[in-house]
């Protein structure tokens, strides 16, 4: 028993220090490289050694078995490590090779509204990598937004209106402050912003300005643009049903050559537009079908996946242009019970050992392990 105790006494601090140093290195590497580092063959050996140390701890130190708090913390850690190893890609490969459990650890599903599919695809190549033993139907995908309130419209610079705002840059404007537009050197000052305005027309019916109004309506903004020492004042006045109004800037015509050589100037217009409200939720209404029959139906959102048939289905992405399809991340649930049991034991053991036991010992007049 003594060699085991010695191994645990010196092996545990060594393993903890090693894991600490590697975690610091991983933090500087970034998540992608850190993931590779911690899944590399030497680290796989390390995870097994750490697991072995925990098991040896039970064999070498009977105290761990006699004290419920210590037992729970160490058993919890063991379950978390074991469950995570079982849930890893390598754990799945082992289960497939030696135990005949054929589950795909991680994949994606792209489903159009109204479509039913059981196809699992690789998240990077989009190639089919397997089938589910059941099918999923996307009944509906939609996005909910926070209420807009009376936020001022946003002033942007860009080439054209786009549903997702690509190629545009929002300007942080305040009345009177001068801004420099990217690429062009044009300086813009917001002279006034009218939250509710009505257009002022000339004799020909052209909009030449705006004045404050009451009730409901669109806003208006007066800007001053300065190029090479010359000032030009202009109004941005959206019409009744318009959610954006565009004011062309005096920039040279952009050519395909400019596009090719990367000298294309994006700042071709000033745009005053209704700001896109922040997203409240992405929702996919899903049905699980077995032999054509619906067995489960659930609307999933971020933080609330669908769990069925040994897989979790997460809301991962969507059709950014027309909301016509959803993309689900599909994860095998191997090791889930062990990891969750480990979480409960590790936390409960910690509170028991560090909080409950000292209080109990204090109440019963014995000196605690705390000090």
């Amino acid at each position, binding site marked *: 028993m003594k060699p085991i105790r010695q191994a645990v006494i010196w092996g545990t601090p060594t393993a903890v220090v090693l894991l600490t140093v590697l975690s610091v290195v991983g933090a500087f590497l970034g*998540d992608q490289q850190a993931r590779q580092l911690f899944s590399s063959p030497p680290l796989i050996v390390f995870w097994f050694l750490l697991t072995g140390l925990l098991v040896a701890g039970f064999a070498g130190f009977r105290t761990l078995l006699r004290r419920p708090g210590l037992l729970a913390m160490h058993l919890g850690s063991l379950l978390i490590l074991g469950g995570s190893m079982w849930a890893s890609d390598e754990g799945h490969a082992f289960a497939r090779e030696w135990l005949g459990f054929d589950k795909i650890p991680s994949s994606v599903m792209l489903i159009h509204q109204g479509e039913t599919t059981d196809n699992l695809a690789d998240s990077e190549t989009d190639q089919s990598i397997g089938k589910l033993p059941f099918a999923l139907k996307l009944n509906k995908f939609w996005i909910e937004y926070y209420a807009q309130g009376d936020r001022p419209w946003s002033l942007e610079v860009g080439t054209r209106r786009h549903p997702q705002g690509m190629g545009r840059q929002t300007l942080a404007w305040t009345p009177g402050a001068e801004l420099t537009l990217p690429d062009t050197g044009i300086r813009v000052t917001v002279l006034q912003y009218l939250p509710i305005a009505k257009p002022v027309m000339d004799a020909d019916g052209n909009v030449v300005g705006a004045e404050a109004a009451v009730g409901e309506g669109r806003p208006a903004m007066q800007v001053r643009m300065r190029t090479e020492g010359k000032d030009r004042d202009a109004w941005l006045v959206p019409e009744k049903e318009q959610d954006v109004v565009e004011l062309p800037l005096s920039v040279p015509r952009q050519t395909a050559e400019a596009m090719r050589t990367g000298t294309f100037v994006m700042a071709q217009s000033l745009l005053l537009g209704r700001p896109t409200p922040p997203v409240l939720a992405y929702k996919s209404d899903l049905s699980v079908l077995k032999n054509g029959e619906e067995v489960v139906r659930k609307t999933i959102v971020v933080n609330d996946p669908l769990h069925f048939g040994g897989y979790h289905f997460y809301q991962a992405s969507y059709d950014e242009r027309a909301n016509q399809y959803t993309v689900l991340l599909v*994860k095998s649930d191997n090791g889930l019970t062990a990891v969750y049991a480990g979480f409960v034991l590790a936390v409960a053991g910690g509170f028991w050992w560090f909080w409950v036991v000292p209080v109990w010992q204090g109440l019963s007049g014995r000196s605690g392990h705390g000090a």
Partner: protein
Amino acid sequence: MELRLTTLGILIMAAEGAYVLACALLASRLRKAGHVFFALGFVATVAAFVFRWVQVDHLPMQNLFEASLSMGMMMYPITLLSRRYLKVGGEAVDALIAAILVFLPAFVRKFSPEPQVLPPALQSPLFAPHVGAYLLAYGIMFKAGAQAVGALWDFDWLLGGEGLLKSEPATHRMVGLGFPLLTLGLVLGAWWGKLAWGDYWQWDPKELWSLVSWLIFLFYLHVRNRWGPRHRVFLSSLVLAGFTAILITYFWANLSALFKGMHSYAM
């Protein structure tokens, strides 16, 4: 640096003033007056916390502005609990910690008071317990760090007192108080990661720094448990290393472009 003359800004600045005064009075052994100002600072931070909650319509622990305010609010209850039940002193240093924490949302431009809505990833029942457990653990570990400084350089006149523990056992008690909360924060984060992103662990820099903090305190507890308090300097240095790792997790990992990751919304 900027002066924030809004209702919220004034409440936070009032808390800041009260905490600074409390620190000065407690360090000058004017305990009663010091406690009055410490309590007034606490009341001001609670008022600011509630005001912010109403303003943003969610628990105000989303970004560094709100988290620092919340931690500044937690220091006074931690002080009272530590003195009364754990026999750990150091109120003057606790008031200083609270003053430093509240200074950030009071004056520092990087800690923006701009209200933010909760993005879909943060709309979870685990948001409050995960962040709350971490902030409380950090407040406790800051106090443990102060006691560790006392154990290294004999500041018992400032950190101890009659009927109170000396700095080394006081450090151990504070770490024992904070460690389960640190574990809870870590585990709830892993659970949340599984529900939101499909994986318990993303190897993102903030996660790794939080693991580093946890591992250092785990190492400290193993060493202290195995060899007792006789390696005082080594043990206290470990606690200070854990304290530094928490500072990196909380500030550097959030503010530096070096550590871009999935927790960037915490800015």
